[in-house]
């Protein structure tokens, strides 16, 4: 059926209203409905154009496809590739699998929603491998410090570092042990002085 206003496009919006006991139906196409301030008695001051525009915005924010506006601007981000293993983001979308451990960093932004919906929280609170690989240690420590915030996380971070401190001493890697000891001290001081984590504590002078 054709739009009752322009009589050119097919009507995709059908508005029904009971007016004075009688059912009235208006059939519109997307563009006529989008035109602002339709001066039709049925709308009674309601700006259908505004309503539809807001709806479009809400859909886009939720990540849902907006009818009539699919694929605009969505092409570019999907071409992402992991520089370490050459796995394409596209491949992840198709198979649900990543290409290598570094993909977690390469596609960090895209994985946020996946991780949030698949898991109960966004950080690991389980066991640790017996010894963290040496080269991962530096970046691991950096990211740990950035996470100073939740009390629960804090308890784990110090535990991890103390465990690794003991292990590095056992392995006679004293340089690493000293670095770990310094970081533990730093975190302890930060926790003691934090108004969030230690509200009743004495602030260091």
């Amino acid at each position, binding site marked *: 059926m054709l739009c009752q206003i322009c009589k050119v496009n097919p009507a995709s919006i059908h508005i029904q209203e009971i007016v004075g006991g009688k059912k009235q139906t208006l059939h519109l196409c997307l563009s006529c409905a989008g035109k602002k301030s339709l001066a039709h008695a049925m709308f009674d001051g309601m700006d259908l154009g505004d309503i539809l525009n807001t709806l479009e915005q809400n859909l886009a924010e939720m990540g849902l496809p907006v009818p009539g506006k699919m694929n605009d601007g969505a092409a570019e981000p999907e071409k992402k590739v992991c520089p370490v*293993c050459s*796995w394409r983001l596209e491949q992840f979308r198709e198979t649900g699998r990543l290409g290598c451990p570094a993909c977690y960093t390469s596609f960090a932004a895209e994985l946020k929603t996946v991780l949030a919906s698949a898991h109960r929280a966004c950080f690991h609170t*389980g066991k640790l491998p017996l010894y963290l690989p040496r080269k991962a240690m530096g970046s691991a420590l950096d990211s740990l410090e950035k996470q100073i915030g939740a009390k629960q996380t804090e308890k784990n971070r110090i535990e991890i570092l103390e465990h690794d401190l003991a292990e590095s001493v056992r392995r006679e890697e004293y340089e690493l042990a000293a670095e770990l000891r310094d970081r533990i001290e730093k975190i302890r001081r930060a926790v003691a002085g934090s108004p969030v984590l230690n509200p009743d504590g004495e602030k260091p002078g």
Partner: protein
Amino acid sequence: MKGLTVPWVKSRRKRSDPADAVFAWSGIRLARNLDGEAFPGNSTPDRRRAVCAAVREALAGNAVQWTYRNAESLDASEAGLLEDARLLPADFLQNPQGRAILASPRYETVILVNGDDHLRIGADLPGLALNRIYPPLDALDDELSSRLSYAFSPSLGFMTSDPAAAGCALRAGVFLHLPGIMLSCGEEKILLRTAEPLGVALSGFFGAKDEFPGNLYELSNRGGLGESESEILERVTAAARRIADEELTVREDLKRRHPERIQDFGLRSFALLKNAYLMSAAEAMNCFSGVRLALETGYLDPLPAEINWNELLLGVQAHGLALPSGEKISTEEQAYARASFLRGIFNPGERP
């Protein structure tokens, strides 16, 4: 009939707790990957073979006598039996290059190399046994982590090829036999409504989310971030107990209000097992469910010989019916062989 004595089919001591009959078996799988190495799905056969060698090397000093089998040269009939026993996923042998299996002498622990992840360490035991299965797997994992460099980050935990599995990278599953719930509401909706808030997922014996042959439902955790290993095991065990209690309550209710449903399901199934000449694995599993329910609720007299249901379940799967030579037989021949075998068991003392 060739069988494989895997731990979950071993017979158990009878326990006084009626809920015990509802728990079929439990299993845990740990997924681990090597640091700095592409995941198996994005790797080359040569790199995968290198990973196999590294894992084999890492287990060289281990107390257990591991048997190493290269997937490319794995005996077809053994592979089929491992698949039936759910120790090997069906697609593992479709791309056998660079894949391997390491197993302890009686398959107590099985390690798959280069499935979806570099390592998948798994073990099963009959009944509700997650807390007994975990400690030896944990110890093995610790030993491996000290010899291999795992892909791990303090915030993301153990990194897996499937991001939905990262964190503890632990999958704990318990199989429950729930014929009462099936009979009383006919749909799985009640289970899904109970399972969802408990944070567990449901799947059937063959892995489907919507088919549950034999009324066997596997409860397993979803995800691994934000929980510790013991919290996961705790949660799945508690969910399994909660649902087992529900099953027993429903059975009591059925006995009171609709005993004929139990009798029909049980006696009809029993008759089929005693008389059929062709039977598929799924049908056999459903018949077992009926007979079990009737026996457990007292609507069928005890059979002359105690039946090990887990063992029977494994015995009627596809590969258990192959010829001793390993030669495959057609589906119809399988159906015939299965039915003959079952007539022998359920008509004791008679010539089949």
